[in-house]
């Protein structure tokens, strides 16, 4: 792993008194797909947003493609051009068409000519299977289509890294698959990706590494079959139980007893988890 696309060293982030990231060290190699999982509020989004400086780190250093993002003298707009980001809420520009969503950033930021930008836009819309929606407005598309356009918009800037923050969490279940398919294709093409997700099947299938975060720290990380299949840490197991079988959540009324249950129950669950893995 000589070539790390992303290097994060001692990253801390506080919002006022609230310390959200408590010393994160993480490397992502070129072409690697890292899935970040963890309970809500554990700091996954903040971690991702620190990488392209949508949030300013309180301490620590971050390198992307060898450039220090956290260097105060760095041209942050130039760095961000190399990092594509996909949001939970798509964030397409609603006032312009699908094609213009792809051409506007190319023309304004990369200064590409009209024809060049249009052909890159067409290419990337084809990649995500939406060439026929080129003239539509975002509001006319389904959530899954909007998210695929958002991915195409990021790709049109030729990024070296793609960050995904729960890209399928705002989608109706039947639309999740089409977005994951596009991400799978990107991974297969060798894109470096950091993906915050609750889609464990995607993590198992696509991720080179899964990172489990809780309370602003990395609790454990490793190959998907290990972290998702047979997690070492109690907190990881509890989290996975909740994700994989939401209906089995413990009774909120009996916390003390519930904890006992959870630990004995989680043994069973991880057993069934590995069963699922072989199946």
């Amino acid at each position, binding site marked *: 792993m000589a070539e790390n696309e992303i290097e994060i060293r001692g990253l801390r982030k506080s919002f006022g008194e609230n310390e959200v990231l408590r010393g994160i060290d993480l490397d992502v190699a070129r072409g690697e797909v890292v899935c970040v999982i963890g309970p809500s509020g554990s700091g996954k989004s903040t971690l991702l947003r620190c990488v392209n400086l*949508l949030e300013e780190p309180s301490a620590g250093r971050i390198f992307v493609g060898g450039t220090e993002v956290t260097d105060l003298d760095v041209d942050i707009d*130039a760095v*961000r051009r190399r990092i594509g980001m996909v*949001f939970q*809420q798509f964030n397409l520009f609603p006032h312009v068409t699908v094609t213009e969503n792809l051409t506007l*950033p190319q023309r304004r*930021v990369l200064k590409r000519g009209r024809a060049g930008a249009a052909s890159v836009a067409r290419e990337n819309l084809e990649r995500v299977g939406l060439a026929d929606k080129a003239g539509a407005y975002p509001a006319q598309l389904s959530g899954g289509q909007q998210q695929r356009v*958002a991915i195409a918009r*990021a790709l049109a*800037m030729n990024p070296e890294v793609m960050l995904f923050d729960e890209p399928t969490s705002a989608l109706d279940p039947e639309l999740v698959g089409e977005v994951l398919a596009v991400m799978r294709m990107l991974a297969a093409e060798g894109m470096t990706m950091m993906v915050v997700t609750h889609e464990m099947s995607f993590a198992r299938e696509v991720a080179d590494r899964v990172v489990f975060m809780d309370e602003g720290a990395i609790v454990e990380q490793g190959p998907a079959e290990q972290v998702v299949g047979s997690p070492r840490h109690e907190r990881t197991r509890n989290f996975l139980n909740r994700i994989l079988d939401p209906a089995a959540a413990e009774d909120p009324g009996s916390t003390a007893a519930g904890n006992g249950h959870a630990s004995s129950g989680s043994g069973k669950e991880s057993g069934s988890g590995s069963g699922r893995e072989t199946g």
Partner: protein
Amino acid sequence: MTSRLTRRQRRRVSQGIQYAVFVAAVVLIAALADWDRLQNQFAQKDLASELFPDIITIALRNTVVYTLSGFAFGLVLGMVVALMRLSSVAPYRWVASVYIELFRGLPALLIFIFVGVAVPLAFPGTEIPGGVYGKVALGLGLVAAAYMAETIRAGIQAVPKGQMEAARSLGFSHARAMVSVIIPQAFRIVIPPLTNELVLLFKDSSLVLFLGVTLSERELTKFGRDLASQTANSTPILVAGLCYLLVTIPLSLVVRRLEARTEKAR
């Protein structure tokens, strides 16, 4: 013992009373007003026809020109003030706030007098370009900008935060994201209130009266007043009023439709 009435009965009684009051008021006004004198004073057909075409080709045209130039200047200035109000540089925010409070708090008439008197005094030798047209654009624009700045600021803040984040993550600078992404969306939101402002300006353009205008620079109110005193009859005032309504009522209807549309789009 009125509480014995059912709800339906009570509603009928209440509506009956309201209609009765309305009819009584209309009848009273109709009976008391001296219609012959009113008609004599306000609705002389031959006098009214003499007003044409000047009332349209000069007066209404000038009203429109004054309004549009004031609106254009106000829009540009209002945009600047709105951006200052949202600036991360504190002195800009202070200046913008002071400007907004000042010009919203003063009567437009006072500002017109100020523009007519104080500006030539403060900058001797300099003429406001465009003569009266320039002064009107300045006077109306200064007032309009204060209101429009607040409207535009609200519009900008109504654009979801994710839009700026998406633009920044694509490599847009803050300024470029504002121009290409945020402001175009904000303008959609503020078109109805800005059109409303246009209606207000259309009426406020009558304050040109206080700047001293030549015959060819008269707008509707001044024109109507002048001719009323020349003819010792108020018919020109009535016709001038109708000319205002000719523009303001359709504009108000447009605003209502735009508002209904944005309401639906939410």
